[in-house]
């Protein structure tokens, strides 16, 4: 097999390969100690961390739907203090870049988190501006101006690469993407989960304790893919594309549509070995196609012009 290059550089972060373990599904990493070798993946994004410990939403927190998973976790996490003391040291043992995902109830909380993280040796910060499971009328990532102001304010406080996780629950994702770029984001990560609901017809109650949840899994893949394709057309920023990727073929779709790297989430629950399988599959595909470098594949979609 011809030697191919899987190395990707996004905003100064070097990934061994374009496979990223996305925020949430991978916890703090240590839980998967026996199942996933962190050294072999491109990067890891931690569970979203908040300033104070967050208990999360009332159970049930999961419902399975057709080809999908509906969750209402509600950003349950240990808080920044315990995260730095108890969780981050494990992730830093590996040669893989660690990106810390953060969320705040207001701008000041994001800024405080960023200032704390500036002192840490991490590869970057991901701003989660799109969690659908927090009870607010409008989340930051659904408004162009709010997105702009938050990122702009955070940008002034840190030199670390800034990733922004975009919400798919918008009319036009390209507008939010452009806002994020203008405000100084370095990498766009898309998409977060789709706001959704499921009903128990016997009790006539919502199946989730949090009523609304976020839909992920293969059910959302073609829509997520469409959004990556759209955003690629309006930005030159690196994109981490995600949404229901299960196999190497799925990952290739995202890369060809314009993603520089792909994010794995829900698949980790189904097949913890997915990352390794996708990495091996990418090598085989590139070799078979006679493409030396995975970067050549990014945005290589042939579009017929009519």
């Amino acid at each position, binding site marked *: 097999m011809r030697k191919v290059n899987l190395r990707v550089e996004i905003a100064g972060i070097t990934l061994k390969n374009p496979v990223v373990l996305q925020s*949430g*599904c*991978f*916890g*703090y990493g240590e*839980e*998967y100690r026996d*199942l996933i070798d962190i050294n072999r993946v491109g990067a890891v994004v931690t*569970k979203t961390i908040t300033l104070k410990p967050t*208990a*999360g939403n*009332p*159970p*049930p*927190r*999961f*419902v*399975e739907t057709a080809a999908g*998973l509906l*969750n209402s*976790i509600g950003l*349950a*996490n240990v808080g920044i203090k315990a995260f730095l003391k108890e969780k981050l040291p494990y992730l830093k043992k590996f040669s893989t870049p660690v990106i810390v995902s953060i969320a705040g109830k207001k701008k000041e909380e994001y800024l405080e988190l960023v200032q704390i993280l500036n002192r840490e040796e991490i590869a970057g910060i991901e701003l989660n501006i799109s969690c659908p499971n927090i009870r607010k009328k409008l989340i930051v990532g659904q408004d162009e101006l709010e997105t702009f102001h938050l990122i702009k304010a955070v940008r002034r406080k840190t030199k670390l690469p800034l990733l922004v996780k975009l919400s798919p629950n918008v009319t036009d994702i390209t507008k939010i993407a452009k806002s994020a770029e203008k405000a100084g984001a370095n990498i766009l990560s898309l998409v977060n989960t789709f706001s959704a609901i499921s009903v128990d017809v016997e009790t006539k109650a919502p199946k989730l304790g949090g009523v609304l949840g976020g839909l992920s899994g293969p059910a959302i893949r073609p829509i997520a893919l469409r959004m990556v394709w759209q955003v690629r057309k309006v930005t030159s920023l690196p994109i981490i594309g995600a949404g229901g990727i299960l196999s190497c073929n799925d990952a290739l779709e995202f890369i060809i549509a314009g993603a520089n790297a792909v994010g794995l989430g*829900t698949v*980790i*629950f189904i097949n913890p070995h997915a990352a390794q399988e996708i990495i091996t599959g990418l090598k085989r595909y590139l070799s078979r196609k006679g493409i030396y470098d995975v970067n050549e594949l990014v945005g290589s979609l042939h579009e017929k012009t009519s």
Partner: protein
Amino acid sequence: MEMLKEIARIAKSHRIFCQVSLEEHMACGVGACQGCVVRMKKNEYKRVCKDGPVFNSEEIAW
């Protein structure tokens, strides 16, 4: 859950120490996703997969 709740109530009324083995929908099963939680009396959530599945019945916020 309702049956376990009733057993916990009966055990308590007879001052019998009771433990219950809970089930919840799980996604990861290794403690990462925070999905299979049950609410405890101290207003905290515990994971059925890692912190349980067996809990002292009096600790649970039935």
